[in-house]
């Protein structure tokens, strides 16, 4: 049964969860990807393995953390190890199926920027940088980008490529020696994929209560738009209940 009452954040978390298959290994940062991964594990993917880059596997937190460095999110983990173990011997080894990535901005090829806004060789404002994001974007079998749907975030060109998507399109990613690549971009208005040849972003579905005009008006580039455009599957009542009552009761991730 589909829910009537849900927030854009909850819809995005559910869309993220639906990208994960049972038995897969997922590398996540903090925030919405954590909610999506825990939701998948409690519903259709009980054998999902969740990795945090600093060396934590499958935690079962009972309190919400402020970030990866918060021991709240390490609670009841099955492994506590290191970057070389997680990002090296699992990710670089080629065993991570899905990586979730967010950022300040992305372009039509799914190149992500978490480093700086402005001119990298002149005036700029520096933000966070890569952490494990570049490693995940380079070595995961596929990545899912989660980003707010705003013209300043969905850009014609990003200021800085921190985490490569399809670079300049076509086979430029493969030519650079990289694996995988982004398969989905989930925003609060729509879900996108990528054209298999050109690698340009392509609309897959638009969320309930949103119009195509609204989706396009809030982007700085024009995505490919298919003739038949489905509406995104809404969250179920049970998915919304799990997010609100068990996964993020303090509404810290949901913001």
């Amino acid at each position, binding site marked *: 049964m589909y829910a009537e009452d849900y927030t854009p954040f909850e819809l995005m978390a559910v869309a993220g969860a639906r990208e994960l298959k049972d038995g897969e290994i997922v590398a996540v940062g903090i925030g919405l990807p954590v909610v999506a991964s825990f939701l998948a594990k409690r519903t259709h993917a009980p054998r999902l393995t969740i990795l945090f*880059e*600093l060396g934590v596997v499958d935690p079962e937190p009972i309190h919400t953390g402020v970030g990866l460095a*918060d021991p709240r999110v390490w609670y009841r983990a099955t492994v506590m190890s290191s970057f070389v173990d997680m990002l*090296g011997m699992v990710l670089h080894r080629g065993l991570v199926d899905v990586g979730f990535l967010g950022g300040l901005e992305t372009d039509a090829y799914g190149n992500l920027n978490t*480093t700086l806004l402005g001119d990298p060789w002149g005036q700029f404002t*520096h933000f*966070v940088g*890569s952490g494990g994001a570049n490693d995940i974007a380079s*070595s995961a079998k596929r990545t899912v980008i989660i980003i707010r749907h705003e013209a300043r975030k969905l850009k014609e060109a990003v200021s800085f490529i921190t985490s490569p998507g399809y670079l300049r399109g076509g086979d430029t990613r493969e030519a650079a*020696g990289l694996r995988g690549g982004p398969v989905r971009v989930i925003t609060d208005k729509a879900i996108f994929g990528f054209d298999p040849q050109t690698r340009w972003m392509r609309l897959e579905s638009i969320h309930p209560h949103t119009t195509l005009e609204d989706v396009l008006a809030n982007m700085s580039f024009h995505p490919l738009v298919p003739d038949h455009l489905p509406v995104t599957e809404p969250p179920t009542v049970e998915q919304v209940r799990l997010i609100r009552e068990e996964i993020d009761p303090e509404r810290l991730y949901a913001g």
Partner: protein
Amino acid sequence: MGKLATLAEAVESIPPGAHVALSGFAITRCNMAFAREVIRQGLRGLTISQCVGGMDADLLVGAGVVKRMIYGGGSLDRFGRLNNVNRGIESGTLIAEEYSSLSVAFRYLAGALGLPFIPIRSLRGSDILTRLQQMAPENVGVVQDPFTGEQWLALRPLVPDVAVVQVQVADEEGNAWIYGPRWDNEEQVKASQRVIVITEQLVPTEIIRRDPERTVIPGFKVSHVVHLPFSAHPTSVYRVYDYDAEHIREYAAATRTTEGFQTYLEKYVFSVQDHWEYLELIGGMKHLASLMADPILGY
């Protein structure tokens, strides 16, 4: 001569311009008491490195101690950004060699193994690499796989002069245990020429010998052992104490401007003689008791 030392003695062993690897990650197990003592002693020109930049690095950079920072990006988690580091990068006063977390970890790993270089898949096609090729061309190169002929990005090993590591448990020889995830600490320690261990708890070697599987830092790499409770405050030490959210918020707000940070430095670094006076300043035992970790939860 034994290895047990005061924090001041351990810091005095570091010459100006040295390369110091820091054990912190964002807001956990950061070398905070160490950073405050380095600033008080007026050490200058350091190179610092860590996989994810933390509050220790930000404090040192803000105080003008750091010339070069080798890191993989960083923040104070939800509390904010590394404002001092970011200001240094934006104004050009800090030379920042910025990588990804795994690239820095691989550079330590190559150093630890004594390898001449290490190939990596990360960074290719990114502007991180473009920037490194301009700023630090001596540390990034291309190597051909002798077996397949494939071209790989290669990184130069990191061999810090000293790793400074916050741990939960150590003995007088520096054999040390780290509880919780270790991020880059083991590779840092093994890549470095020597190690300064700063421990929450000092135990007899007999305790270490009963559970030697837990030893992450072997005593033979360690030059100084500093027994200093709450030395990571206001950051957390898993299973010992939680982060001090109120203090980190104050720091994040103060570092929004250089003037605000100078006020913070004056209050929490220069106005006290040592770590013990600092602990009194932040509220003493009454306040610290409120941060103690629950033994089941670890925070």
